[in-house]
């Protein structure tokens, strides 16, 4: 049986969950958010690692770890999108990419990072408007209009791209 290391337990003695369990429980959730927003496995892995490490630091203070981690991952992924040049983002994960997906990735890369992120969170993750608002730092009341604008922008560029 694989021994379960708990390197953080001595730092957070009141935490009821070992760091290994914490990572095991939330890593897929965080990775999926990061991958949806960035579209790249390497960036998603970086975001996942950073987010889980931040989560471990605050582990015992988190009332809703899943929600906290989702929002932090989305914010970090959005920051990465803003830092990366569009050409690099357009090279989304090529592992299993058919032609249409390449076109989608190239179209997404023409959108603003905020529009890319809101599309990813709303379409791929089933996020509530409140969660999206928190991740993007916008009022919940404006999420619907932003999402509509993002879809319109995607349609417009998709038409050009095709």
């Amino acid at each position: 049986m694989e021994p379960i290391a708990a390197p953080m337990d001595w730092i957070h003695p009141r935490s009821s969950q070992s760091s290994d369990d914490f990572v095991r429980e939330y890593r897929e959730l965080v990775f999926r958010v990061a991958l949806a927003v960035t579209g790249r496995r390497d960036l998603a892995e970086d975001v996942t690692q950073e987010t889980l490490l931040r989560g471990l630091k605050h582990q015992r203070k988190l009332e809703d770890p899943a929600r906290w981690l989702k929002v932090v991952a989305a914010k970090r992924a959005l920051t990465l999108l803003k830092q990366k040049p569009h050409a690099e983002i357009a090279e989304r994960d090529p592992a299993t990419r058919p032609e249409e997906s390449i076109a989608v990735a190239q179209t997404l890369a023409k959108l603003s990072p905020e529009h890319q992120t809101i599309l990813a969170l709303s379409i791929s993750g089933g996020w509530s408007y409140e969660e999206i608002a928190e991740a993007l730092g916008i009022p919940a009341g404006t999420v619907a209009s932003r999402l509509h604008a993002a879809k319109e922008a995607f349609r417009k560029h998709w038409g050009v791209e095709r």
Partner: protein
Amino acid sequence: MNDRDPIEALESYYRELGEIPIPTLVNRRAIHWWEAAGGIAAGAAAVVVAVSICLNLGNSGAGPNPGLTEHQVRMAGLQIDALPPHRRTQGGRRWLV
């Protein structure tokens, strides 16, 4: 495919992304990174303290020169009481030099 609805294509794209397997290394990388960070920090602190001690002890004729606190010395695993009293206390705090 030219007639494909763009939002449908987008949904299909995200579904495809959702099928990419999660990397099994993420767990270990995160834990190992954290452990390594802690180890590196502790190791770096010990090296800095040890080097500083060597430099300060070798500079004993230079007069008062606040160096390392008792806490730093203890962190380095050294025994402060082994030092002469005049090197332990200065200005209400404990200094090595």
